[in-house]
């Protein structure tokens, strides 16, 4: 009976915390309006990418969870402690940790709702695709939430007042945003910053969340990042719970420093483990990756077994003569020139997307499939010089699973949805046909 009653009480506390959060204008502004501002800020910067924002959703969601867990949670807890709310709670016949757990759970729900709102708004405003693996997004969110809420609890335990929460929160937030791979993409950071980021949870949070959007394998292979988040979150949460103060009058003792030491040690341990397992080697952006492909690698690419240009698979029309293409193909060419998804400065991604178009037309058996294949080749040659295009095509051939491909192109009247692996495979065929012609290994 008693256990049941206390569970009811704890549940009531969880529901009440949620309810009161939605009555606070300040909580609504910080919990929902600020994430919208971040979404618009990211959208302003990355809207021209293809697909817009998709490669930065991990960063965006990490910022939202970080803000809710490391600012929202401790601010609410410390403000209530300063008011004397937790002093009143202590009179209840329930262990304090149960009430703290209810508060953490409520915060997880609040942050989760902000994340869902961001996903839907990104879809609505920027047409950002929804995550490929919704179930895995939930799993990644829980892992990131667990880790950051642990940190938030520790901040609440250490901070004597709300201004101290802001100060401590910024000490975590700003480094993670600037050099932790959260605000600035990891690949854009110098090597030393990338190494430091390996000691911070933000990098691992972005990793697990981003995988759900762009990694064809989803969370498969993200074990280390999950472990890192679990270790950092558990250490901070344990210290936070041990040092939890329900009364403003209670000051931290010197022994409480051991709790902080435990939390810091977890960061160091994670960074050291990442270092020891070679996970902190510098991450290079795609642009740099295709440039790094050597001439020798390009020369080693073989063209044996490629389907013929007039066969069913990967058809390719001969070069156009003056006024040669029919009107429907010329119309396609005009639309392709102004198609937003190739208006980006990222050559690696542009090439993959253009190859996808040729592949989608071919697999979908479009009546213009061979001409579209030729149009794409012409478009690529008009955009890039021979040497750069050779590297770009070689990168697609050698790393077929990198980057993002398009599986349908309704804007260009290629509406049929196709399976991604098939599109990737067909993209490689076209890449080889184009590269072979560029290098004179295939007659055109």
């Amino acid at each position, binding site marked *: 009976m008693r256990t049941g*009653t206390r569970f009811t009480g704890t549940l009531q506390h969880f529901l009440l915390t949620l309810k*009161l959060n939605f009555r606070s204008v300040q909580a609504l502004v910080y919990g929902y309006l600020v994430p919208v501002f971040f979404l618009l800020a990211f959208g302003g910067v990355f809207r021209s990418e293809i697909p817009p924002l998709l490669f930065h959703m991990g960063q965006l969601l990490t910022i939202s969870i970080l803000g809710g867990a490391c600012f929202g949670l401790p601010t609410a807890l410390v403000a*209530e402690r300063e008011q004397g*709310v937790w002093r*009143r709670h202590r*009179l209840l*016949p329930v262990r304090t940790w149960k009430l703290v757990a209810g508060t953490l759970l409520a915060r997880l729900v609040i942050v989760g709702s902000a994340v869902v709102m961001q996903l839907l708004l990104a879809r609505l405003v920027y047409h950002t695709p929804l995550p490929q693996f919704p179930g895995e997004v939930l799993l990644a969110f829980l892992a990131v939430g667990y880790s950051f809420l642990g940190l938030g609890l520790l901040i609440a335990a250490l901070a004597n007042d709300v201004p101290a929460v802001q100060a401590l929160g910024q000490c975590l937030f700003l480094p993670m945003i600037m050099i932790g791979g959260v605000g600035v993409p990891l690949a854009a950071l110098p090597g030393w910053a990338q190494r430091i980021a390996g000691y911070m949870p933000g990098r691992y949070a972005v990793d697990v969340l981003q995988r759900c959007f762009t990694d064809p394998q989803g969370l498969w292979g993200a074990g280390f990042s999950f472990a890192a988040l679990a270790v950092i979150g558990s250490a901070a949460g344990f210290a936070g719970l041990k040092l939890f103060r329900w009364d403003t009058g209670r000051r931290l003792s010197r022994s409480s420093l051991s709790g902080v030491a435990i939390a810091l040690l977890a960061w160091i341990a994670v960074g050291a483990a990442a270092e020891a397992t070679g996970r902190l080697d510098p991450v290079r952006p795609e642009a740099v990756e295709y440039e790094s492909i050597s001439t020798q690698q390009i020369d080693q690419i073989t063209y044996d077994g490629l389907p013929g240009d007039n066969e069913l698979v990967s058809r390719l029309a001969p070069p156009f003569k003056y006024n040669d293409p029919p009107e429907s193909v010329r119309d396609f060419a005009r639309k392709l020139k102004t198609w937003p998804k190739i208006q980006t400065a990222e050559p690696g991604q542009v090439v993959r997307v253009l190859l996808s178009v040729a592949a989608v037309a071919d697999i979908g058996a479009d009546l213009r499939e061979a001409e579209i294949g030729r149009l794409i080749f012409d478009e690529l040659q008009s955009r890039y010089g021979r040497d750069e295009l050779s590297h770009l095509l070689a990168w697609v051939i050698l790393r077929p699973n990198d980057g993002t491909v398009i599986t349908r192109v309704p804007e260009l009247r290629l509406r049929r949805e196709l399976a991604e692996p098939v599109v990737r495979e067909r993209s490689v065929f076209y890449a080889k046909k184009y590269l072979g012609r560029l290098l004179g290994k295939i007659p055109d």
Partner: protein
Amino acid sequence: MAAPEILDLLVQVRILVGQPFDAKSHMPTAVPVSISVNGLAKRYGAVQALQDVSFELLPGQIFGLLGQNGAGKTTTIECLLGLRQPDTGIVAILGVNVRNEPIRAREHVGAQLQFAALQDKITPAEALQFCASFYAKPANTASLLAQFDLTAKARAPFSSLSSGQKQRLFLALALVNNPEILVLDEPTAGLDPLSRRELHQIIAGLSATGKTVLLSTHNLEEAGSLCDQIGILHEGRIIANASPAALIARSSANPRVSFHTALPLDPPRVATLPGVLNHSPQGNSWVVGTNDVNQTISALVRELAAADNELLDLHIQRPTLEDVFIELTGKTWRKIETEETP
């Protein structure tokens, strides 16, 4: 083992089995004890906040823990509620050792703390329902709202309530578990005289229903009028523990007669009035200490009639709790109530 240690052990054993004891004789008492505090001590750094604090409360009793700010009242209450761990000593509530079973002890107690609050946006109805959800047999929250005149404010945010309404709500929250024991830390602090009187009536009513009330206060009048028993706490020690009447009766302070006359009086004549021990004139106003109020007043009236003088005003001041406090501590009682809201 030395004899005092054996006695302490016996006391502890009796507390653990719920058997009451006599704090002085260490012998079992006949009636059940609601709260027993024995040998409580607590130190904060260099400050000894409590030292050997012992007292007992019987069912239905209103016990006032009287002391100035910093005397140790709140620390005593926090130790009693299991919110703070004493360095030494034992607290038992209905036989439940608070240190060992704080959650079980709290089930029997309703408490109102001096420095506590609720969330700004919570309503009285929500606060009562929330607290009630932790108990197996809670009180009816609607009845509590009605009892404490909060029905009209049931859905108002806590931050919009007046000081008196907030205090009434905390008292309602303290009763949400139908407790046998009520612990109230400075329940009337910050209240206007009307609200204070209302609260006194409520507390007296609760005591009449058999609930044991322990309240801390620095208000002498409140302690004197409301409490059956007063423990005077000074610098962390209980320096007196008795009923208000018994405390005053024990006082060696003399009554004072203050009066005002139409014409001046000759000081030597006043000094020689029967029973007068001391006197202090201020114009035509006098305060005289006497060991025989009747004789002094009779002689004064005769003296005034003979001198064709007129008695305009006269008051008799019997010894008060303040006199008791001054006698016990050698210090005057600071009027802290001036800090409170008028």
